[in-house]
């Protein structure tokens, strides 16, 4: 083979890449086919050169065929993403470093002294389970009305919330340094209305239609001639809702109007008609009406009569 040419080629076995910097293509364009042929023959030489080195590597036999260990590529190509940045130490890590606290491996099984058994540290039937405590002894500092069990739960909740807050702060500082762990995303949740914690309620389809209808009635023509958007339904029947019974009863059907009047009459003229009447309510209504009439319906509009004032010509009549 052309061993001299081998040295002149730049071969990168890791990438299966070969470069021949010395070939000069004739500037005078020969025919297309000849040019193509020339390129392919030059390419063949290069591939042969790579294959020479490749097939001479120690190969291991596998099911698919001979496997060869490729060397790492020599041509430097740009990375697609930045190098992973080191995470800034968390607040606890800084404190531990300062104090010289070493991390200690915790065992999964721990000896429980209350029951002389080995129990697991986390999970079902664990050591020091909060729910398992039957009696909490009262201390001198305890208030009489306080529930110590509820207090324990409350304390735990506070601790958990504090930890969540600390975790968030640690992640924020990591994000600032560009080293947020890949599976975590910090997102701004919905912004609350100033002052309230409540989130704005989302209106449903019907509710929106109702509101649109209400708004339409405020127009001069009551929303009748408003331009409707595509897909907007016509307004539901507006105004008073009357249900009129048919004047002429349908053949074979009961006369509904007659039934209606009979029903009312029956109730009024029945034996127990006095029981229908709510006497107390009727009396109250009557009394209210009477009082209103007495005091004058438009109290504010009419000038108040002053009883102490005497009429100017009252005595003249008695003369």
């Amino acid at each position, binding site marked *: 083979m052309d061993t001299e040419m081998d040295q002149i080629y730049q071969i990168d076995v890791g*990438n*299966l*890449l*070969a*470069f*021949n*910097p*010395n*070939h*000069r*293509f004739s*500037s005078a364009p020969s025919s297309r086919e000849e*040019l*193509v042929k*020339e*390129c*392919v023959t*030059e*390419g*063949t030489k*290069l*591939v*042969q050169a*790579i*294959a*020479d080195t*490749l*097939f*001479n590597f120690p*190969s291991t036999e596998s099911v*698919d*065929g*001979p*496997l*060869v260990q*490729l060397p*790492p590529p020599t*041509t*430097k*190509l*740009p*990375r*697609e*993403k*930045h*190098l*992973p940045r080191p995470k800034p130490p968390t607040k606890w890590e800084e404190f531990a470093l300062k104090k010289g606290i070493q991390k200690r491996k915790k065992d999964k099984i721990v000896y429980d002294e209350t029951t002389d058994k080995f129990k697991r540290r986390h999970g079902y039937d664990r050591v020091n389970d909060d729910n398992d405590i039957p009696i909490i002894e009262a201390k001198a500092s305890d208030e009489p009305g306080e529930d110590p069990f509820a207090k324990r739960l409350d304390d735990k909740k506070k601790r958990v919330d504090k930890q969540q807050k600390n*975790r968030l702060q640690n*992640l*924020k500082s990591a994000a600032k340094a560009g080293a947020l762990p*890949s*599976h*975590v*995303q*910090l*997102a*701004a*949740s*919905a*912004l609350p209305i100033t002052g309230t914690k409540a989130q704005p309620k989302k209106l449903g389809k019907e509710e929106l239609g109702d509101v649109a209808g209400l708004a339409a009635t405020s127009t001069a023509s009551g929303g009748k001639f408003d331009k409707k958007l595509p897909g907007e339904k016509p307004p539901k029947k507006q105004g008073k809702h009357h249900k009129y019974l048919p004047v002429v009863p349908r053949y074979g059907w009961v006369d509904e109007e007659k039934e209606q009047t009979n029903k009312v009459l029956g109730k009024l003229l029945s034996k127990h008609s006095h029981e229908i009447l709510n006497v107390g309510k009727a009396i109250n209504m009557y009394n209210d009406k009477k009082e209103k009439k007495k005091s004058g319906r438009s109290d504010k509009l009419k000038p108040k009569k002053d009883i102490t004032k005497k009429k100017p010509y009252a005595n003249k009549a008695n003369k």
Partner: protein
Amino acid sequence: MMEIRTPKTHKAKRVLEKRAPKLVENGKKTLILHGTKTSATLSSVLMELYRLKKGGAIKYSRRNENIRPFESGGETSLEFFSQKTDCSIFAYGSHTKKRPDNLVLGRMYDHHVYDLIEVGIDNFKSLLSFSYDKKIAPHEGSKPFICFTGEGFENVPELKQLKEVLTDLFRGEVVDNLNLTGLDRAYICSAISPTKVFLTHCAIKLKKSGSIVPRIELVEVGPSMDLVIRRNRLPNEGLRKEAMKSSKDKPKKKVKNVDQDDVLGKRGRIFIPEQEVGKTPLPDKSKGVKRERREGKLKKKSKEEGSASKKHKESE
């Protein structure tokens, strides 16, 4: 108000970890898309490029009007797509009167445009127009040989950049072990003039030769085209330096419970859990313990008692 969002499924977590920046990176994926107008040649070029890079490429079929790679504001769409699909190389094709059959090859660093090179396509021959023995057709996803010929690739800066981009484009994954029977394709790039590169794709035929190394024969199978250099944009120095940075050492895998001793050599520690021989639960196969026997016994006992009480009563 900030909240922490973590993936709720293992699959989502794995996807996120795959896309995270790592010391040793995954193979670069290619995004293939086109602009407002494409010609017949350009659309077949993009289609065949996608076929060649199947498995490591994503092809968008809709036209994108607001992508202008060489303009300052026209890259935002590209960067967004790159972020969404996790692709770091893109091939954007467009056809205008001024730049007919235009192909822009670009790379991304951290989902921002790193460098661009614009080529025009001449004398395109589709892979359907080549006739060859189907047995030697290269398999999908096989690692290719890449060959560059011509002094232009060393002397002309645009061609140098094109060489780098083409290497990145055709390289695929970086592998440690290679199966020698799976080598079946080669890309030949020849700088036929300082502004023109002839690119072709060939299948490899291995022929018997005297030694272990087989004789290589190349047969043109794939698309072949002439690339005419138009515009390019090099990465700025600072960005290039940062992108070329690589950490030298691989992450050291911690091997636990192994010590290296100068005197004794390599020592390992084995932990055996405590064997409580007295407390091992043996299967209780004794006859008296079986449930049926127990129940039978109880019945018998109660029967006896009943009869005993009866007897007692009778006797009374």
